[in-house]
């Protein structure tokens, strides 16, 4: 049985690097990523699992890091937006101007990345189901939809115009 009592040093696999952190068992993953590891891509939004701005990927599935204890993630693979390098999702969000203020973007990118990895054949229905987990308040949903349809071939693209 694994036990953590009081502040403990835990090894986390973040973006394919093993990072040691001293955490309380009640520390949330988002706080450890941001405050101890300097990975500020996961954004604090509602901190209640509603907005999706803090989404990271654990073992290929998107999770809201405000609703995960850091100690739970020892032994699992955590991917943050800082670990994405030249992915089709990042290119598409730039090419289709799928953001305005950008606060929600890292969360959207993580969901999109997990979706493409897990369901490269995703259709409109699956895409909507996954992306409904995230909120954008700058009304760029149509641009996000266009961006997603560019890397998921089964998602219908009502307006495939790339904005340069």
């Amino acid at each position, binding site marked *: *049985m*694994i*036990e*953590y*009592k*009081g502040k403990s040093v835990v090894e986390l696999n973040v973006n394919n690097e093993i990072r040691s952190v001293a955490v*309380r*068992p*009640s*520390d*949330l993953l988002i*706080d450890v990523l941001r405050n101890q590891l300097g990975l500020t891509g996961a954004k604090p939004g509602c*901190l*209640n*699992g509603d907005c*999706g701005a803090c*989404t990271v990927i654990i073992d290929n*599935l*998107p*999770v*809201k890091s*405000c*609703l*995960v*204890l850091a*100690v*739970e993630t020892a032994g699992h693979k955590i991917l943050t937006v800082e670990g994405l390098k030249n992915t089709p999702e990042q290119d598409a969000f730039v090419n289709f101007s799928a953001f305005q203020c950008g606060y929600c973007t890292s969360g959207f990118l993580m*969901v999109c990345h997990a979706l493409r990895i897990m369901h490269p054949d995703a259709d409109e229905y699956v895409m909507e*189901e*996954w992306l*409904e*987990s*995230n909120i954008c308040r700058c009304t760029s949903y149509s641009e996000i939809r266009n961006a997603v349809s560019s890397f998921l071939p089964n998602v219908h693209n009502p307006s495939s115009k790339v904005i340069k």
Partner: protein
Amino acid sequence: MIPFDFDYYRPETLHEAVHIYQELKSANPFYYSGGSEIISMSRLGSICPSAVIDLKAIPECTCMDITSKSLIIGSAVSLTRIAESNLFPFLSTTIKRIADHTNQCRITIGGNVCGTIIYRESVIPLLISECDVVVQTANGLKNRKINELWNGRMILEQGDFIVQFIIDREYLFLPYFHIKKVKNEKIDYPLITIGMLKKDGLLRAAFSGICEFPFRSLKIEKILNEKESPDSVAQKICNALPAPPINNIDGSDGYRLFVLKNTIVEMLKKIGEI
């Protein structure tokens, strides 16, 4: 941020889990699975566990197997895993309307059924299919029918936890109907959620959102199967609820009854067409 400390235990066997709970029980430990509700409530100061006992490393709690007789779902299996397996389509459909997809990757079926948030919609197909529930007690494993344990919520002794739900195979592919009505957004707590399943020519039904607890009522099922017009059946069901309708900012009691009645009529008409 959670503004207090607790200890974290991740047992690997059922025995370890129940043993550590018994050892800590005077200090308010919590069994922990997906964690969404425990973390949210701890952050708000609504609960203050001294320790959490994470059940996700116990193989019996994380298994999902189909045998010649039944479907076995561990209590710590995530909603996403259940939905994607689609071994019990009625349960998959119900689960896909709980929270959002990313949260479904964390929420577990045991956590949803045993949580304090009153809607607990996963229980609807489980109640209707009269599944068995394997409970870990201080004295070992016990098998109980869900209807014996369910009284608006799961009635468990302190320190007990659900290990598995076992659904008889004959229920897995029976025709079912599921409707969830919400106030505004698609992702929200329900105004009403109704699940129906047809077995041996008779409809069974369970409800969430209308009263302060999810329920299956044999009295309502009797009305549901009367050979009367959908309007008459729906009105009788509204008069036979086991408790007053919820009256809150998401929907007044009168509005919930209005939606319930119309939804039942809509469902019965659809079922009649099949």
